[in-house]
C-alpha cells in the first residue's frame, strides 16, 4: 500500500512539474528563511554558555540612584571581588577583570594591536577557557606574563612554540608567554585576544590598587556552588556596598552570566529585557514565514482538487477508507516538504555567508550536531503535516457519487477558505512592508538628526606609547598642521563616539544634596570646539593664552541641570576642588544618538588625553592626507602602527541594531511577499480553471481580451485591498510599539501605508495577469466542446 502510494505520489509530482516547482520552491524558501532565522536565534541564545559552570556564574551589577532614575551597569570596584569570597557563603570563586582595551603587542617585527583583558587566576577558572599549551595552574600568577589566544599566537609566532617566548607590551614591558588558550568564540560577551595578569595592571596603574569602593572600573564575576540558594546570595550581596561606604545610594545584585547578553537592560534595578526583544521578533518572523509557506501549499493543493477529485471518488468506490486517503495526501505533502528541505538546505548554505556578513555573526551549520538535524527534520515533518492537513481533510471529504457524476464539488465555501488564506498571506506581507519602511524612515531620521558637530572628514588617531607627553603632542599637532593634511587638530580623553568616564562628584550652589546627577567628564585640548565644528555659545575655549588648569567648559545640558543664569564665571566644585566655568558648548552626541544628551564637563589636562581628533583639509585628496598623517605620526612615535579611524564609521556602528533589523525585515519581507505571490498565482490558476467555460461563453458573446482580464483581476484586487485594510491597524500598533522605545522618533506618516498598498497591488496584479491573460487569449472552442 505504502509503496504504491509512494509511487503514485512521485508520478503525480512529475506529471505536474510546474505545480511541484511552485510548491517545492515556496516550501524551500519558507524552510530556509525559518532555518536561518532559527540559527541566528540559537546563536544569540548560546551566548556565554561555553564554560562548564555557566549556569552558576553571575555578573555583579551595580545599581545607583540618580536624578534621572536608577541606573544599572556591570562596572564594579576592584575591591569587591576579594571581599565576596568571604562574605557570601556558597560563593566558590569571585574574580575581577578589566574590560577589553586594545593594546600593542609585538614580537620582533610583528606588531598587533589587539584587545587585552587584565584578569586574575579565578577569572580563568570561572570562565573555564580551554588551554591548548602551557600549565593552567601557573597562568596569570607571575606579573610579567601573558596568555595568548590561538590566532594571536599563530600571528605572532607562526608555527614556532610560543611558550616562554618574550613579547613586548606597548613597546615597553617584556612579558613571557605562559600559555595559549583556544580562541574566544564570537558568541561570548567577554572577548579578548590576550590575557594579562591583574598584578601587572596594578603596577601599571596605581589607582587600581589604591581606589576604594567609589571607583567602578572592573567586571566582577561570581561563581556559586551548584544548587546554592541564589536569592540568599543576592540578598547578602545587596548589603555589601552599604557596609563599606557611608551614605551609599547604590547596591549590587547578581545577574546570570548566560542572560547577560540578551537581558542587558535594567529599569529601576530590575532586568527588563534587551536584545531578547529582537530575538523574539526574529523567532516569530521565522514561524510566520514558514506558516505563509504552508498556507501557500494548502492553497495550491486545494486549488488542484478538481483534478484529484475523480481519483478520490474512485478510490472510495473500490473500498478505500477516508483514513487511508488522508494518509495518502499527507504522504504527498511530507514528500514535497522533504524535497523542499533539500532545496532549502542548498539555499541556506548559499545564503549563510551573506547573512553572516550582514548580522556580524558566525552562523554555521554544525553537520555533526544531532540537534541541528533534529530541528531540521522536525521542522520539515511538521511543515509537511501542517501544510498537508487541510488539503488532506478537504480532498478526502469528497462524496464519490458527486465526483463521479461530474458535479462540481468545489463550491463557493471552499473558495472562500482559499480567499481567507490569501488574505492572511497578504496581511502578513503588507505588515512587513510597512514595518520595513518605518524602520528605514527611523534610521534615516536618526542619521540625519543634528548630532551637534560635523562628523564629515573628522578622524581620530589613538595616542600610544611615548606620545603620552605634552611636549610631544604639541610637536605632533604642529607637524600635522604643517603637513597640510589637516586643517584643525585637538586632543580628547576618549573616542568622540564612546561613552564611559562619568561621575556624580559635581557640586554647585543650590544643588539638592540628596540628588545624584551623573556628569560625563573629558579632558580636551585647545581648539576642541573649532575642530569639532561645534559652537561655543558663551565664553571661550581652552587656549594657550590662558592657564586653564582650574577652568572647565560645560555643555548646555549641564547648564540646564545646574540651573545657571550666567554660567560663565560661576565657580562649581568638581571632584572636591573648585573650578571656574569659562565657556558653554553646544550639546553634541557622544554615546547614544537615541537619548537626551547627558551633562558634560570638559577640563584641560594634557596627561589624560588618549586620542588626537583632527579634521582633514577639505581641499586635499583623502588618501594622500592619510599617508601624510601616517608618515608624521610614525616619525614621531616609531614602533607603533598608526590606525586612523573616521568618526563617521565609528558613528555608523551605533545604528547596527536598526540596520540589522531593517535588512532582515527587508529580506524576509521580500521572501514573504514572494511566497504570497506564489499562493496568489495558485489561486489564479484555480479561478481560471473554474471559470474557463464562463469566459469562453463571454468571449463568444463578444467580450474583448481586456474585458476578460479586468474581470478576472477585479476579484483579486478586492482580496488584496481587504488584506491591506486589515494589515494597516495591525502594522500601526506594531510600529507604534517599536517606535515608543526611542526618545527621538519619526512621526508615523501615511507614506509607509501608501507604499504597502501600492506595492501589494502592483505585485498582485502582475502575478494574476500572467494567468488571466493566458485564459483570456485561449480559444473558446477548447473549453466549450467538452460539455
Amino acid at each position: 500500500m505504502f509503496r504504491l502510494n509512494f509511487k503514485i505520489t512521485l508520478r503525480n509530482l512529475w506529471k505536474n512539474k510546474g505545480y511541484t516547482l511552485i510548491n517545492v520552491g515556496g516550501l524551500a524558501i519558507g524552510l530556509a528563511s525559518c532555518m536561518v532565522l532559527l540559527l541566528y536565534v540559537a546563536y544569540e541564545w548560546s551566548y556565554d554558555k561555553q564554560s562548564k559552570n555557566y549556569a552558576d556564574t553571575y555578573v555583579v551589577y551595580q545599581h545607583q540612584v540618580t536624578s534621572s532614575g536608577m541606573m544599572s551597569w556591570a562596572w564594579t570596584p576592584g575591591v569587591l571581588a576579594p571581599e565576596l569570597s568571604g562574605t557570601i557563603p556558597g560563593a566558590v570563586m569571585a574574580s575581577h577583570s578589566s574590560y577589553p582595551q586594545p593594546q600593542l603587542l609585538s614580537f620582533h617585527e610583528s606588531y598587533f594591536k589587539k584587545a587585552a583583558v587584565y584578569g586574575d587566576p579565578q577569572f580563568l577558572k570561572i570562565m573555564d577557557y580551554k588551554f591548548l599549551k602551557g600549565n593552567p595552574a601557573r597562568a596569570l600568577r607571575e606579573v610579567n606574563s601573558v596568555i595568548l589566544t590561538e590566532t594571536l599566537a599563530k600571528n605572532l609566532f607562526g608555527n614556532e612554540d610560543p611558550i616562554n617566548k618574550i613579547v613586548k607590551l606597548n613597546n615597553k614591558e617584556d612579558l613571557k608567554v605562559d600559555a595559549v588558550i583556544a580562541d574566544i568564540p564570537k558568541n561570548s560577551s567577554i572577548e579578548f585576544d590576550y590575557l594579562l595578569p591583574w598584578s601587572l595592571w596594578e603596577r601599571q596603574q596605581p589607582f587600581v590598587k589604591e581606589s576604594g569602593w567609589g571607583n567602578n572600573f572592573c567586571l566582577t564575576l561570581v561563581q556559586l556552588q551548584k544548587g546554592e540558594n541564589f536569592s540568599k546570595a543576592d540578598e547578602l550581596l545587596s548589603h555589601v556596598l552599604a557596609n563599606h561606604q557611608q551614605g551609599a545610594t547604590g547596591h549590587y545584585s547578581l545577574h546570570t552570566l548566560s542572560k547577560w547578553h540578551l537581558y542587558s537592560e535594567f529599569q529601576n534595578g530590575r532586568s527588563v529585557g534587551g536584545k531578547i526583544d529582537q530575538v523574539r521578533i526574529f523567532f516569530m518572523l521565522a514561524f510566520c514565514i514558514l506558516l505563509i509557506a504552508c498556507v501557500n501549499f494548502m492553497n495550491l493543493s486545494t486549488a488542484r482538487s478538481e483534478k484529484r477529485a475523480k481519483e478520490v471518488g474512485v478510490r472510495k468506490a473500490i473500498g478505500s477508507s477516508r483514513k487511508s486517503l488522508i494518509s495518502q495526501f499527507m504522504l504527498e505533502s511530507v514528500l514535497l516538504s522533504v524535497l523542499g528541505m533539500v532545496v532549502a538546505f542548498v539555499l541556506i548554505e548559499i545564503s549563510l555567508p551573506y547573512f553572516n556578513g550582514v548580522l556580524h555573526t558566525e552562523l554555521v551549520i554544525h553537520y555533526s550536531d544531532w540537534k541541528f538535524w533534529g530541528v531540521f527534520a522536525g521542522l520539515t515533518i511538521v511543515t509537511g503535516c501542517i501544510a498537508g492537513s487541510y488539503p488532506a481533510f478537504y480532498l478526502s471529504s469528497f462524496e464519490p457519487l458527486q465526483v463521479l457524476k461530474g458535479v462540481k464539488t468545489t463550491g463557493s465555501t471552499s473558495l472562500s477558505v482559499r480567499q481567507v488564506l490569501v488574505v492572511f498571506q497578504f496581511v502578513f506581507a503588507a505588515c512587513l512592508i510597512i514595518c520595513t519602511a518605518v524602520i528605514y524612515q527611523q534610521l534615516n531620521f536618526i542619521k540625519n538628526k543634528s548630532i551637534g558637530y560635523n562628523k564629515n572628514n573628522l578622524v581620530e588617531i589613538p595616542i600610544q606609547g611615548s606620545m603620552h607627553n605634552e611636549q610631544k603632542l604639541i610637536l605632533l599637532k604642529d607637524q600635522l598642521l604643517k603637513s597640510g593634511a589637516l586643517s584643525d587638530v585637538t586632543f580628547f580623553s576618549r573616542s568622540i563616539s564612546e561613552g564611559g568616564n562619568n561621575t556624580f562628584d559635581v557640586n554647585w550652589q543650590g544643588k539638592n544634596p540628596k540628588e545624584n546627577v551623573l556628569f560625563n567628564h573629558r579632558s580636551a585640548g585647545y581648539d576642541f570646539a573649532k575642530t569639532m565644528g561645534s559652537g561655543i555659545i558663551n565664553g571661550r575655549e581652552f587656549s594657550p593664552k590662558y592657564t586653564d588648569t582650574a577652568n572647565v567648559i560645560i555643555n548646555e545640558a549641564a547648564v540646564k541641570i545646574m540651573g545657571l543664569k550666567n554660567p560663565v564665571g560661576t565657580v562649581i566644585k568638581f571632584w572636591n576642588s573648585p573650578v571656574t566655568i569659562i565657556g558653554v558648548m553646544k550639546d553634541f552626541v557622544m554615546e547614544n544618538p537615541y537619548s537626551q544628551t547627558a551633562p558634560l564637563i570638559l577640563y584641560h589636562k594634557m596627561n589624560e588625553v588618549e586620542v588626537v581628533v583632527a579634521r582633514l583639509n577639505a581641499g586635499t585628496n583623502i588618501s594622500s592626507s592619510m599617508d601624510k598623517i601616517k608618515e608624521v605620526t610614525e616619525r614621531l612615535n616609531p614602533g607603533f602602527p598608526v590606525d586612523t579611524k573616521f568618526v563617521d564609521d565609528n558613528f555608523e556602528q551605533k545604528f547596527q541594531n536598526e540596520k540589522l533589523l531593517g535588512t532582515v525585515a527587508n529580506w524576509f519581507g521580500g521572501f514573504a511577499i514572494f511566497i504570497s505571490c506564489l499562493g496568489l498565482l495558485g489561486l489564479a490558476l484555480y479561478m481560471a480553471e473554474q471559470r474557463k467555460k464562463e469566459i469562453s461563453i463571454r468571449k463568444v458573446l463578444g467580450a474583448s481580451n481586456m474585458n476578460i482580464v479586468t474581470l478576472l483581476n477585479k476579484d483579486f484586487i478586492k482580496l488584496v485591498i481587504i488584506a491591506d485594510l486589515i494589515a494597516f491597524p495591525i502594522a500601526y500598533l506594531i510600529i507604534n510599539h517599536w517606535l515608543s522605545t526611542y526618545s527621538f522618533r519619526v512621526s508615523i506618516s501615511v507614506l509607509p501605508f501608501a507604499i504597502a498598498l501600492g506595492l501589494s497591488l502592483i505585485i498582485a496584479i502582475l502575478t494574476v495577469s500572467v494567468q488571466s491573460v493566458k485564459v483570456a487569449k485561449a480559444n473558446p472552442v477548447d473549453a466549450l466542446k467538452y460539455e
Partner: protein
Amino acid sequence: MITLQNIEKYYATKGLKSYILRHVSTTIQQGEFVSIMGPSGAGKSTLLNILGMLEEPTYGTYEFMGEDITSLSERKKIELYRNHIGFVFQAYHLIDEMTVAENIEAPLLYKKIAGAERKSRVADMLDRFNIVGKKDLFPNQLSGGQQQLVGIARALAAQPSIILADEPTGNLQSAQALQIMELFKKLNEEENITIIQVTHSEVNAGYGSRILHLLDGVIKEDLNVVNL
C-alpha cells in the same frame, strides 16, 4: 439478496417535492442478471446508486444480504464495498496515475490481501481478459473498450458477489459493447455473480435474465427474459 421496500427519493425545492423514485419495491436474488431500463430522467441511475449505497433513499428500507443498509455506519459500508460490491462505470473511472496492473490491484490493497495472493489474482485477471501485454500501460494509452475491460477486471479482482454497472457500454462501439455483454453473461452464468446494469439498449438488456422498466420513478414493468 437485495430487498427494496417502498423506496422513495425526492428533492424538495421551494416546498415543491420533485420525485425521482416512488414506491419502488422489488427483490433481487443471488445469481440474477437484472437490466434497469427506461427513458432519460426515469431514475435508473438513482436507483442503481441507491443499490450501490452511493446515495441514500429519502424513505423506505433497503436490505442487503439481510442487513438494513439505512442504519449502517460508514465503516460497515466500506466493508461491504470491499467484500461484496464491484462498480463498473460508464466513464470507466480508472485512476490515471496507476498502471493497468496497479488499477486492478488497488481494491485488493484496501482488502488487505497478502502480497503473493494479490500478485496471483492480478495475474489471473490480466490473463483472463487477455491484457497481460498491457499491464504496465497507463489508462490514457488504452482504447475505450480496453479501459472498460480493465474497469471490469478491477471490479472482479475483489471477488464481489454483485456487480453494479451504470451504462457500461455507453461510451463504446457496438463490437466492443458486445464483447463486454458476453463477458457479463459468462460471469453471471459460470460464477453465479449477481449483475445489475443500467442500459438504454434493448440488445444489452437481452443478455440479462430480468428487465425492470422505470418511468418517472415508478416501476412500470418487471419482465423475465425468455432465453431463446
